[in-house]
């Protein structure tokens, strides 16, 4: 089985999931993202790093059109998912977001039971034909979120009663439940303690078997630990993009080097 996965991974490595060209994002008058072109691969963890306010979160939110909810926000350029322009007027963001899930900085479980938190997405998208299927999806998602063993006996308890790390894994499991193809994570560990962080990182590593994962992080160690590809953003520009190892050991741009060595940040 292991070989099988390894083999698939090698083939899929070549798949480009997201292709973005000359992307610009404006907040009213502010030009937040400038000329960003990047290819995000399937079944790979890509990390976005850079100093605060460099636009990495903004760019991440452009990938599933979460920016639509912010008044005055405009996106230009081409962003394609599997070759389809996600800003095409024919695209319903609702369908897009089912394909491109997102996990936020602070765990945000709904004030519902653990079960209902997970079942929310499948219910609205009609992924289960009956209760048994829904149960199955919930269990599968919680297993993927590495939370099943901890909560299987208390699925009806409120999700807000879990610890911070558990809540974040619940949110990841919740995103997984809608069977997305890409998972966007916006600093998913910044509100967690080191032990919870380690658990989530481990989880991310497992998730890449099935999904393309994009993670925004402040921690360069985390980027180095979990990702295969790294993009460095600075002042709204994508400065450098490449294999994580290369970026951290042998960056081509002096700005990247400064950041990595701690001179800017």
């Amino acid at each position, binding site marked *: 089985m292991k070989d099988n996965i390894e083999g698939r991974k090698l083939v899929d490595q070549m798949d480009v999931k997201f292709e973005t060209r000359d992307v610009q994002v404006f907040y009213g008058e502010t030009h937040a993202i400038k000329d960003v072109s990047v290819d995000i691969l399937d079944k790979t963890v890509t990390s976005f790093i850079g100093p605060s306010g460099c636009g990495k979160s903004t760019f991440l939110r452009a990938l599933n059109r979460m920016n639509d909810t912010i008044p005055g926000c405009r996106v230009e350029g081409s962003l394609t998912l599997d070759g389809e322009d996600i800003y095409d007027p024919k695209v319903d963001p*609702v369908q*897009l977001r*089912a394909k491109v899930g997102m996990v936020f900085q602070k765990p945000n479980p*709904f004030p519902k039971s653990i079960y209902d938190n997970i079942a929310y997405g499948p219910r609205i*998208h009609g992924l289960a034909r009956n209760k048994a299927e829904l149960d199955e999806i919930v269990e599968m998602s919680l297993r993927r979120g590495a939370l099943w063993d901890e909560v299987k006996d208390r699925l009806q308890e409120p999700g807000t009663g879990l610890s911070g790390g558990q809540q974040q894994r619940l949110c990841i499991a*919740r995103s997984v439940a809608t069977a997305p193809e890409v998972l966007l994570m916006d600093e998913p560990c910044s509100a967690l303690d080191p032990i919870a962080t380690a658990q989530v990182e481990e989880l991310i590593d497992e998730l890449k078997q099935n999904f393309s994962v994009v993670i925004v992080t402040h921690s360069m160690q985390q980027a180095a630990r979990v990702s295969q590809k790294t993009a460095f953003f600075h002042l709204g520009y994508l400065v450098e993009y490449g294999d994580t190892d290369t970026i951290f050991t042998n960056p081509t741009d002096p700005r990247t080097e400064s950041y990595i060595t701690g001179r800017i940040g």
Partner: protein
Amino acid sequence: MTTGTLALIVLAIAVVGFILGRQRALSLVSGDSRKLHSRPGYYGQVVLLFTAVPALLLMLAWLFLQPIVVENRVSATIPDGVVPEGGSRSLVMSDVRRIADGLDALMSAGRFSEDDLTDMRADFVDVRTRLGEVGVALGSDVQPPVFEAAKLYRDNTSTGRALMTGAVLLVALGLLVWSFTRISPAQRARNASESFVKALLLGASTVAVLTTVGIVASLLLETFNFFKMYPARDFFFSTTWNPQFRGGSDLGIIPLLWGTLYVSLVALLVAVPIGLMIAIYLSEYAGKRVRGFAKPAIEVLAGIPTIVYGLFALITVGPFLRDWLAQPLGLGNSSSSVLTAGLVMGIMLIPFVSSLSDDIINAVPQAMRDGSYALGATQSETVKQVILPAALPGVVGAILLAASRAIGETMIVVMGAGAAARLGLNPLEAMTTVTVKIVSQLTGDTEFASPETLVAFALGLTLFVFTLGLNVLALYIVRKYREQYE
């Protein structure tokens, strides 16, 4: 001397005290204010406060207590024989007061002097006519003991006033001298003055407590009197409301409560869905322009006095419902009805519900919305399945507050619901409410002796307990809700 003049004199003395105190402090250190513990003004302030505040408080207390004392003393002199059959001592006492007032009026009109009054006897002089001349109308001829009581009442009152003037001035001047002699450079004048002011601030904030005590005490006392005349069991459980002028009234609260709850229910059925949808639309959907126009418009509705809504019910909504709904359906032909009052009250409550719900919906963290959108939920799915469930306790609290408003609302039901106490289901018929009956039993001539009047206090107490209960519950729920997201 009127109380107003007396108060002004006390204040004038206090101002003089301020000036004297300040000067004395300065002269003690021969003008070098650095040697004083506090700034010179504070020495003046201490004198001012000590002069004015106790004296004015004494005056207030005196004004409050004197009528009670005088009343009791005079009332004791009236023989039982004078109290008419079926009437009460308090009725006689109110005659006594009016005669006394009338005598004052006669006196100030210069019709006769104090000496004339001492000789005047009710058996020989037609007191009623003479009082009529100065505009004091009496229901019947004055009996001699009552007239004597009125004279005693006047005497006691004026003696009391004179004593009060003396006592107040004495206190003011005494404390002025006392605080003046205490002035020394080392005196901590600022601390003294500040403690005094702090006590005053505390006093001001107890007004709220005193108001509640006043409300509860007056309601309880008169309700107690009511239940002495009318059995509590009948009040709470009788289904008939039929007050009679000559006694033998049926004063059951049930039809009134039914009307109140029915009208409130209609109002909530109008206000809650509309108010909630407005709040949702304005906070989740509306663009800047719509919000900029609709929000103030809704808020204007909240600022309109209820009498305006009452008039709206009376001249527009009532006739409209009668002509277009009640009569064609054959369900009644009264323009005041449960539906009229309920509909208009519902409109009144829309802004109340919507602004409370708006606060509550906005208290749901944005992260919750983001989480839902990121899963591919539409806005309405997010509202219905995430925001509303999250806001539910708050919304329930808001509905309870609105219900308490509806139950206590008066003018709209007075002008829109009608006056007929009725236990029915037809919303196009006139029914009446607790507040309507409080108004009708207490307006006009109120003599505090009959159960027909006193029942208003029992109704008021019921209303108070109801609304207070709803409010306490609602505030508790809302507070719990807010703590959840803080």
